[in-house]
């Protein structure tokens, strides 16, 4: 199970709030090690690395919320479990991923 521990990956189930609000990926910047593993899998250009002067490593992955479709693949690639789900407050019925 060492692989599983190293790559915690996507939780098996959607977060509890998913029935009310579509989930969106967010990076917990304190955990992020800026390893760049998540960037290539994002087909929606929703991930970028930004300079973070206060961060231990000086940089962190950041989710562009407007591009994120909440697909979950970035969770899979994170070796330090730095992704969490947050409610997507900006979604509207015309936007992919919204409940109709």
């Amino acid at each position, binding site marked *: 199970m060492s692989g599983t521990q190293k790559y915690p990956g996507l939780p098996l*189930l959607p977060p509890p709030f*998913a029935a009310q609000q579509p989930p969106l990926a967010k990076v917990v910047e304190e955990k992020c090690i800026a390893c760049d593993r998540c960037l290539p899998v994002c087909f929606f250009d929703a991930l970028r690395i930004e300079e973070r002067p206060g961060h231990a490593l000086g940089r962190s992955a950041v989710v562009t919320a407007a591009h994120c479709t909440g*697909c979950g693949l970035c969770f899979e690639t994170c070796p330090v479990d730095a992704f969490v789900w947050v409610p997507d407050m900006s979604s509207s019925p015309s936007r992919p991923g919204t409940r109709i």
Partner: protein
Amino acid sequence: MLTTLFLGMELRSPVIVASGPASHDVNQISLAERHGAGAVVLKTACSDKYQHMRFWPRPRYKLLDWDKQIAGRSKQFSLYSYEQGYSGSLEDYWEFIRVCKRHAGIPIVGSIFADEAGDWAAMAAEVEMAGADAIELDISSPHRPGSLEFDTTSVAAMRAVVGRVHIPVLAKLAPGTNVLKQAEAAEQAGAHAVTLCNRLQGIDVDIESQRPILHGYYAGIGGPWAKYYTMRHIAEAYRTVHIPISGTGGAITGEDVVKYILVGASTVQVLSAILINGWETIARMNEEITGYMQRKGVDRLESIRGQAVASMTPPDNIVRWSGEPLDGTRNIWKEPGP
């Protein structure tokens, strides 16, 4: 060297981006082209009746059994997903095709899904008018409504589309015991090629909550392991039907592409490998195919298509030898020792 003639289109590579999340926006077309893809099959557009399929559950992907290799090195994974259709309206989709055609230097294949033959035909006509070079009929998506029967709905759809458009029509079939029969039916209905095969439907369960994972319903499931039954289906179809085959499902290396061609595929569609190992997968595949051709002295891939099928051994001719003799040492009963 990799140039492949497929349905009247001269492709610079037999490697095609399959319909899905790697072909749902315009920028991905230039990525596919830049990395050497022969063509792109666009994300499937659903008829207005199925507009709920333009919305996607979150999350919708889970990598199972992943070997956790990054930087394009992953060899093992199962992509478990509830992939849905193109997220815009049909008008958006026609415009999507037009923009792709304006900017792409490689053929663009439209992909549609509907139920009634009239809807299939009307959508296909729009795809053609928008400028697509060919059209793929997604009659086998693992996420389609279960009530649609192949023998009625799908055959009628193929006939209606073939009778309506002048561009080549590919029928994408599901794997399983019926695939050969369906490939024959597709040929009889006038399809110009078959795409073999779509993904299987599967389910995984979270034993803690005792619920199905992710969206809670059956998912599409595929991965490198799918290549073995995919190749079998291609080989069977290659022996039986007379229209070209676009193989898809499980190919992650150039060697896989060569194998698919050896069992009869003309082109090979790739998606999961791009998703997991990056767009560079296409360039790597092209390099590996070229390397194989140089090593084996192959000028054109057409010259090796179906070679492995031609040298398959019929079951009656398989050389067999005696197994364990009934009076051999392993067949003499001994009481277990203390």
